[in-house]
């Protein structure tokens, strides 16, 4: 199961890639595999303020729907509009082209509540 080294992760299988005071978020390989073929992504609106672990988006496959929680708080500054026409980008490339939103971060210290890649790998091993 691919886990990107310099990203951080939540127990709900979202990832966040922090670059200074901005970040990109998406869902992990584990999450996209569990959901199967993704058919629709409900993107957040640009300008929305989200709290850490607050729902900001949702992803649907044929027989499942999953809410996406923001790994950190901040303001949505950009969303991946490619997903509107091609939700399958999440299945094909969940860590790069399948990103969901970009955030202007509110509180950098929140990162301490997230798992780094190694912790996330260990966490995945505890799941079956």
């Amino acid at each position, binding site marked *: 199961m691919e886990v990107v080294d310099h990203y951080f992760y939540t127990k709900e299988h979202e990832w966040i890639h922090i670059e200074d005071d901005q970040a990109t978020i998406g869902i992990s390989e584990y999450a996209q595999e569990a959901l199967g073929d993704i*058919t*629709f992504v*409900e993107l957040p609106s640009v300008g929305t303020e989200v709290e850490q672990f607050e729902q900001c988006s949702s992803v*649907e*496959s*044929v*027989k*499942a*729907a999953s809410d996406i929680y923001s790994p950190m708080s901040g303001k949505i500054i950009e969303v991946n509009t490619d997903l509107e026409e091609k939700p399958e980008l999440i299945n094909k490339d969940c860590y790069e082209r399948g990103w969901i939103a970009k955030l202007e971060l509110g509180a950098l210290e929140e990162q301490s509540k997230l798992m780094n890649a190694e912790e996330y790998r260990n966490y995945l091993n505890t799941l079956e």
Partner: protein
Amino acid sequence: MNPYIANTEADVKAMLDTIGVASIEDLFADIKPHQRPRSFALPSGKSEFEVIEDLKRLAEKNRSPLTLFVGGGYYDHYIPAAVDSLISRGEFFTAYTPYQPECSQGTLQSLYEFQSSLCTLTQMEVANASLYDGGTAMYEAMMMAIRINGRNRIIMDGGVSPIYRKILKSYTSNLAIEFVETPVVHGQADRGHIRKALNKETAAVILQNPNFFGAIDDHSDLVQAAHSVGALVIESVYPISLGLLKTPGEMGVDITVGEGQSLGLPLNFGGPYLGFLAAKKEFVRKMPGRIVGQTVDGLGRRCFVNTLQAREQHIRREKATSNICTNVSLCALRALIYMCLLGRQGLVDLAQLNLDKAEYARACLEKIPGVEVKRSSPTFNEFTVCLPHDASAVVETMIDRGFAAGFPCGRYYQGMDNYMIVAVTEKRTKQEIDQFAENLKDVLARFS
């Protein structure tokens, strides 16, 4: 012995042996003695013949046939024989929800055709596979609008069926929804009141065409006004009238709902009926209820499946768009077959026939001394008259002469005790209308 049980005594014995218990009673050991019924005093069973006779006696206690001029959203249209014949096929009526698409293409394709027919009828982009009835469909549409724009103020025109309005109120009594009811003026939705009530908290304006009094309207201006403050418009329609009338799609309505009983369903003392809901495509993911979509199978052949199921309760559970589990497939099938038999020109001709007969009836009633026919707005096959006496009393007398003369407004509208709403369908002959008018004239004359 229950005639629908096939197991013989020998079968039962063999099955109990396999299970490894001595008697059927042993299988119920988990239900403890103190949990057993305190009473189960039901009558003994009867033969099929006896039950049918019992039920015939009950059916005959109902005053039928009456010559019906009562509508109120539920109309006495003719149902072609092929409708009943086709929906009686066991493959349709003893199947369940099409969970396994490979062995349910009959139901699934029918529902796709139903959705498509509803779309071309209303000129909306997407329809679901049906809801319980017109009233609950309106409730679902209201909740859908609230989900779409996150607001909670609902403006309801007084011309919307008072029965639907009562349903909406009881459903939302525990929810934070603000209702604003606007009056009907000269038969139509009152522009001034609605515009005044519209604001940025308004989720939706709910309208009806033709309205409860029978008036027809073009709501385009209200749609524009609502959209200018980000509110949606829900319009309830009467399917047969759409053979002639401006469609919700043409008016720019966001969500259309209605009662589909007029499309080949018997009156049935209130149900089962057919609720429908159609909307603009952009709102499809907020729609409640089942939706059938077209796709291909492994060999690239066209086929149909339940789609967008991620909205529904069996997947979303507490986050579902609605708690609805099923639709009314068999009623939707009835409506579809009816629409197919009617065909493109048939719908137009039927609507025209209804309109002509109603206009004729209106003219006949107008000639009766003391009867005032409301002509402030055009109507379709239902219109309101003002009588010189209490309409309830007049209608009661008319029933004894074999006519259900109309629906008295006083039941639902204050200060309208003398008003009566009269509906005329293609089934009413000129002779029946003439006799209706003569009898009404006579009854009114005797009143004074």
